[in-house]
């Protein structure tokens, strides 16, 4: 699934993998630049852009004003005039400040002008629960399901963070790139060399025959832990990570569903309006005859996310939530 020019691996954190991707792509292509709030001198509040200023200088690594509308809108302006911006919104919770730009400009500028432009940009959107409160801790990827024209890419481990970000930067379509803030410190094996992961290709993170768990972002790791425990109890779980919502690799999902006949969809966003509903609908439309049990969604409850980490533990889904859901399948 991933293309590498060498077989050796190294261990990187998720954050280091993002930084590595930026470094490699900026090294490769002078049109690539990085901007956002605190991304230059400070190196990004999650350290994902640390060291880039020293290496590439202030022309290509730019601290912006606190102006999300401008950050995204001007990235579109730069992209349609020959550059390849990688803009960071400090929190995906700021989507609302830049929503016109994200939804109408990033996604539609090419289409509505008759396809005369390409909009080759990446907007990096740190998401997910981390104890920062109801406005910062959101996972708003499903809001962009209807923003046709923009890709929605979501890595779940350091190797995918590296390979998907590199592919996103090289792609001529605009990419909304969601990074779970709770994953930044996670370590993982990453292939050496020019590691590219194709966009729109799901990863079967664990092969199994009894149940398909479709999960993305932080819930992939939780689902893999659940699968280990369930395996010990005799249930063989397949974990499919779509690696984003658009392009959506429906084939890999349906193939797995046809094999197992049982589906759990796990994401951190609240259940109502979450992308699990869309994927469940696709499965119902395309593969109902394979289902031996109703589809179960594992998600946050439909309440705002409290800032208190103590309360968050009762809200945010974990491996235990996946195990409980698998137990409820027929």
């Amino acid at each position, binding site marked *: 699934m991933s293309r590498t020019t060498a077989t050796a691996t190294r261990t990187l954190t998720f954050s280091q993998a993002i930084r590595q991707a930026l470094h490699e792509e900026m090294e490769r292509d002078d049109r690539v*630049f990085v901007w956002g709030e605190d991304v230059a001198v400070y190196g990004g509040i999650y350290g994902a852009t640390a060291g880039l200023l020293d290496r590439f200088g202030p*022309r290509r690594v730019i601290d*912006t*004003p606190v*102006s*999300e*509308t*401008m950050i*995204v*809108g*001007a*990235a*579109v*302006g*730069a*992209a*349609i*005039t*020959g*550059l390849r*911006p990688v803009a960071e919104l400090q929190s995906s919770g700021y989507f609302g400040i830049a929503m*016109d*730009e994200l939804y*109408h*400009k990033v996604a539609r*500028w*090419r*289409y*509505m*002008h*008759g*396809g*005369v*432009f*390409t909009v080759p940009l990446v907007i990096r959107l740190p998401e997910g629960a981390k104890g920062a409160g109801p406005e910062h801790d959101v996972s708003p990827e499903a809001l962009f399901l209807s923003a*046709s*024209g923009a890709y929605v890419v979501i890595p779940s481990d350091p190797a995918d963070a590296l390979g998907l970000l590199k592919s996103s930067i090289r*792609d*001529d*379509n605009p990419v909304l790139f969601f990074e779970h803030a709770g994953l930044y410190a996670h370590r993982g094996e990453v292939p050496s060399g020019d590691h590219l992961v194709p966009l729109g290709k799901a990863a079967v993170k664990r092969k199994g025959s009894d149940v398909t768990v479709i999960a993305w972002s932080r819930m992939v790791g939780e689902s893999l832990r659940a699968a280990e425990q369930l395996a010990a109890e005799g249930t063989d779980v397949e974990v499919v990570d779509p690696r984003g919502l658009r392009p959506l690799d429906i084939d890999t999902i349906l193939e797995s569903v046809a094999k197992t006949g049982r589906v759990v969809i796990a994401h951190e966003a609240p259940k109502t309006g979450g992308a699990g509903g869309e994927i469940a609908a696709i499965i119902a439309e395309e593969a109902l005859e394979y289902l031996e049990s109703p589809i179960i969604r594992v998600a946050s409850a439909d309440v705002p996310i409290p800032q208190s980490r103590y309360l968050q533990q009762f809200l945010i889904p974990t491996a235990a939530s996946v195990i409980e859901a698998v137990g409820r399948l027929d």
Partner: protein
Amino acid sequence: MAGLLCTDPGRRRGAGPEDSAVRCWVATNRVKTMTAIDSTKLLELYESMVTMKLWDQTALRLLQEGRVLAGYHSGRGQEAIPAGGVAPLRRDDYLMYAHRGFGYTIAKGMSMVAMFGDLMANTAGATGGLGAGIPHFADPELGILGQGGTLGSCFGIATGAAFSAKYRGTDQVVVCFFGDGTANRGAFHESVNAAAAWRLPVVWICENNGYAVSVPASDSIAGRIVDRAIGYGIPGVRIDGMDVTEVYRATCEAVARARAGEGPTLIEAMCHRFRGHYEGDPQVYRTPDETERLRALDPITNLADRLVAEGVVTEEQLAELASRVQRKVDQAVEEAASAPMPGPERLYEGLYV
């Protein structure tokens, strides 16, 4: 450009108090006339405005005939701003145009056939049939970067294009047109601030026609738009937007500054729209008397009078010019009209690369 920083402006003439519905602005201390305008340039600017006016009349006719499948925001009365504001640009300079009339893109050299095609929503259009009426056409070869329907999105894109020009080490300049209503969108602040902080080559041209759709500027704008330049530490100038020579001079100087790496300028061009915000606008917010009085301020007839009075041209030559332009417009309509409508497959083309 000593003294250009927020030069004082405008004093009203003959139309009552400041909050009167009719605003007739005349700049008292005009921009310094460092830019010479010879008679050839004057005639070019005149022809540009005549083209816009005849285009507009033709668009209105097509609308009446039911051949335009969407609304249209007439640019009648405001021709001096696109004519004088686009003429100083090079082919490779960038244009963010406003929604009123098609004058900006006409002046930048866009194909009239493509624009009429977009009006008629057929495949001759630059968008290949996605039209219509309120344009989203673009031409990267001419630096025409398109337009957002959610007005105000021009600001961020202009800042980004100006950043791009500087990043790539070119001396390209961006000119961004917007109305007084759009100036109140938050994107204005974010984008003008960033462009000023980074000394980007962009010229912001506000067309203040006194109304945001129906709401008078006096009810919705605190202070003067031009004075916002002080806050951003950039030159700002308020000019008579009904006088194409004034628009041309102010823009030439702002473009020269931008090209020289001296950063942005804010130009507030005071003007009047002769028709409603859109065709069919009942204009309950102003009196027929007001629209009637505006006719005396027509930037095209006023320049024509001046050209004749100064002996630059004769009435006959102006009439010839108008018929020549009308023929060009008519030919474009005819060519555009012969194109077929798109099929349903058009919906699915061009969304992704």
